[in-house]
């Protein structure tokens, strides 16, 4: 099962399993939130469906795994490296692919960014091989909460996602750059008409979103296994989050990520094969209730 953790305690144990199921749901939600925010912002600001988002996620994960030995095993440094390393990549994608797609039909963006993803995935296969790699849990201990062992690392991921949420809220509501982006989300032409070069701000947001995707990828490595195609599953789930949360809606993305993480975990507990399917059922319902206007 793609995004579900390899050792799914909830499915293995019986009685107290619901608590760990919820904890896993929140972990998945946290990762999904960190990854999806960039996708949501790119769609909300640029009206571009960016499949290449899954590539920076994958690169972030591989950069962490490869750099870990160079940082003497320091997980934190390796995560930071994974996040920073995608900045030039995101810049190149924005400058030479995304920027040419402004105002074009949305299918061109899908085709072009999907091409970038495929090229990138093959490059990953070439560099790192197709064999799955794994990185062990950097903390390794668990806290016992309500009689259930919860790995500290996963609790840290949940805490980090809350921190990302708070920082983004402060950034978008309290700084001028953030407010320009919020204004641009609301009405791009009116923002331009204030003499603001909105595209420059949107490029910045694009890179910020890519860095968060890389962060999500890097953080997820110890929970899952690392392979060149890891981005594909996450991409589809992130789209579900973005659609349920509302395109460009930052708070909505936060709520939707955790809700869908819980949907996955709870469904997986009772019917493992349906856990990802249920996410798309929820997405379909969201689309029926509130269709997207493109």
């Amino acid at each position, binding site marked *: 099962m793609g995004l579900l953790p390899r050792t799914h305690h909830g499915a293995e144990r019986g009685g107290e399993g619901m608590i760990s199921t919820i904890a896993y749901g929140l972990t998945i939600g946290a990762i999904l939130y960190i990854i999806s925010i960039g996708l949501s912002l790119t769609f909300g600001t640029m009206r571009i469906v960016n499949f290449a988002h899954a590539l920076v996620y994958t690169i972030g994960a591989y950069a962490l795994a490869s750099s870990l030995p160079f940082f003497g095993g320091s997980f934190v440094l390796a995560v930071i490296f994974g996040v920073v390393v995608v900045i030039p990549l995101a810049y190149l994608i924005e400058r030479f692919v995304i920027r040419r797609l402004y105002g074009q039909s949305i299918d061109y963006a899908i085709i072009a960014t999907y091409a970038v993803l495929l090229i990138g995935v093959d490059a990953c296969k070439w560099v790192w091989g197709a064999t799955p790699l794994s990185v062990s849990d950097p903390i390794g201990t668990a806290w016992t909460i309500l009689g259930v062992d919860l790995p500290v690392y996963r609790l840290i991921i949940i805490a980090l996602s809350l921190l990302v949420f708070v920082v983004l809220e*402060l950034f978008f509501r309290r700084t*001028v750059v953030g407010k320009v982006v919020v204004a641009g989300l609301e009405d791009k032409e009116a923002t331009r008409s204030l*003499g603001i070069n909105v595209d420059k701000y949107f490029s910045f947001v694009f890179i910020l979103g890519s860095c968060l995707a890389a962060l999500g990828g890097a953080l997820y490595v110890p929970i899952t296994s690392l392979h060149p195609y890891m981005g594909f599953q996450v991409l589809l789930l992130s789209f579900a989050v973005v659609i349920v949360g509302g395109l460009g809606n930052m708070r909505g993305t936060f709520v939707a990520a955790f809700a869908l993480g819980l949907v996955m975990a709870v469904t997986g507990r009772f019917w493992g094969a349906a856990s990802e399917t249920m996410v798309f059922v929820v997405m379909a319902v969201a689309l029926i209730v509130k269709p997207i206007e493109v």
Partner: protein
Amino acid sequence: MQNGMVLESQSVSKRFGNFTAVDQVSYQLFEGEAAGIIGPNGAGKSTFFNLLTGLYPPSEGRISLFSRDVTSLRADQRVMLGVVRTFQLVSVFDTLSVLDNLVLSVVRFHPVAGKKARFILGSAHPAAIVAECMAALERVGISHLAKETTAKLSYGDKRKLEIAMGLALKPKVLLLDEPLAGLSDGEITEVLDLVREVHKEMTLVIIEHKISRIVDLVTRLSVMHEGRLIADGVPGEVLQDPTVRQVYWGAESSRVFSGLAAEEKAEV
């Protein structure tokens, strides 16, 4: 009247697929003018504004500002050269506070405070910036609403806010796209007074649907119809033009037109 040329379009056209929204319009605006552009719905007036301000690239033709070719400049670059506009559907940012709306207009004129403040929490509002924003709100008479969320404002107050944001950009030319649409009679009077006041400082172009509202304000009147400029000149003469009467009031209604003209005279 023959001051310097502010704005000029040379045979600009805009096509959307097979539809020609603006068709070979050549237009010149001179310093100090208050020019009105009228025409039926769908005549291409707003599209023409979008071409002048750079929101749309023209399909053909050239646009100059102060005798400089700006056809390839972006909308935000043209704003910095002094062309500012308002929108037919009032365009303010509902999710931001009234003050923040103005901060977006003002912040570029404070390079030091502005640049440093951009990434810093809370310091989005150095005293100088706030003072300038409040002065701009004061001018349109809504400074008491500064702290409100913009979504809560009445449509008329939003229109005043939009004009305040435009003025805060220190324009040389202000393009107003149906600034009176959707306003109550009282608000129309207030906004018209404001526009008259503003005209003392800058060149104006006003798109309006109802001629009677602006006929005593404008020094020049142009009429658009099906994307073309069909008349351009002193308001009194333009309104007497048979083609204009035909377009604006239909073939059958020269009688009605005399009535309207009388009504307009009464308003003047």
